[in-house]
């Protein structure tokens, strides 16, 4: 089995370079046979695509998708500089 370090790197690279995801802002952590994905994206479909791409890049590992959806709220209080 590949060292966790290389698995994480491979997944990270797949997420950045795969045309389905092109996500650079996702943290990938490998612990034993588990992969943890963390970050924030703006659509539920993107969240699932990231999981798909990660699973393909690291077959056999269980993927924990802890990516959250960015809730784009109404703008809050203005800041006076």
């Amino acid at each position, binding site marked *: 089995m590949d060292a966790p370090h290389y698995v994480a790197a491979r997944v990270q690279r797949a997420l950045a370079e795969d045309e389905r995801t092109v996500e650079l802002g996702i943290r990938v952590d490998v612990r034993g046979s588990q992969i943890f994905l963390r970050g924030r994206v*703006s659509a539920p479909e993107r969240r699932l695509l990231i999981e798909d791409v990660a699973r393909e890049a690291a077959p056999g590992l269980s993927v924990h998708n802890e990516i959250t959806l*960015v809730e*784009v709220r*109404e703008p*809050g209080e*203005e*800041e006076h*500089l």
Partner: protein
Amino acid sequence: MTQTRIAAVADIHMGEDLRGHFRPKLHGIEHRADVLLVGGDLTRHGTVAEGRVVADELRDLPIPVIAVLGNHDYHSDAEQAITSIMRDAGVTVLDDEATVMSLNGATLGVVGGKGFGGGFAGKCASEFGEPETKAFVRHTRQIADRWRQALHGLDTDHRIVLSHYSPVKDTLMGEPTEIYPFLGSYLLAEAADEEGADLIVHGHAHLGTEKGLTPGGIQVRNVAVPVIGSAYTVYCMNGA
């Protein structure tokens, strides 16, 4: 006293799947702000099709829109086409240049461009060694030089720098420190500190933090959507 109200956002990363999602969030923006700044990563893949989605989301807003591109907008080598599409939609797209406008009787100058990486003083790359390394650092230095010149030529009440990459580390807090050299460069801050500015707005660091300061004391704001959690944030500057 008159105020200039700056709305800012970055990293909207539009694609066909998000068509029509962003525009409704801008409804009523003219009551909250006088101008909207968009700090790059307008698209995900940098395709012409995605550029059209962005243009449609930003078209005919009741306030002026000023944008720069981000690294994602360069991914498909269509940055020129995206720029043209945005300009046709009435958006001012800055590529290491300045624009000046009058808002509420005060003049505002915005110098903008995507910026680039290299890292931060003491922990950064330098123009030394292989041609690839030199080219990387030179790209940032040339951008900073163009910003310096553009700022130097501005004689406005307020001056803002609009970037995609970060000029400081402060607003990267939350990102892994190992990738800071790919998230920004101190050369961008240095140019602004030398010539003076009231505010630097950027994006790119999705896991970063909103507020920071340059070594020279210029306010820096990271307005990436995942950071601000809203369609835009408004910063107010007191009149001239």
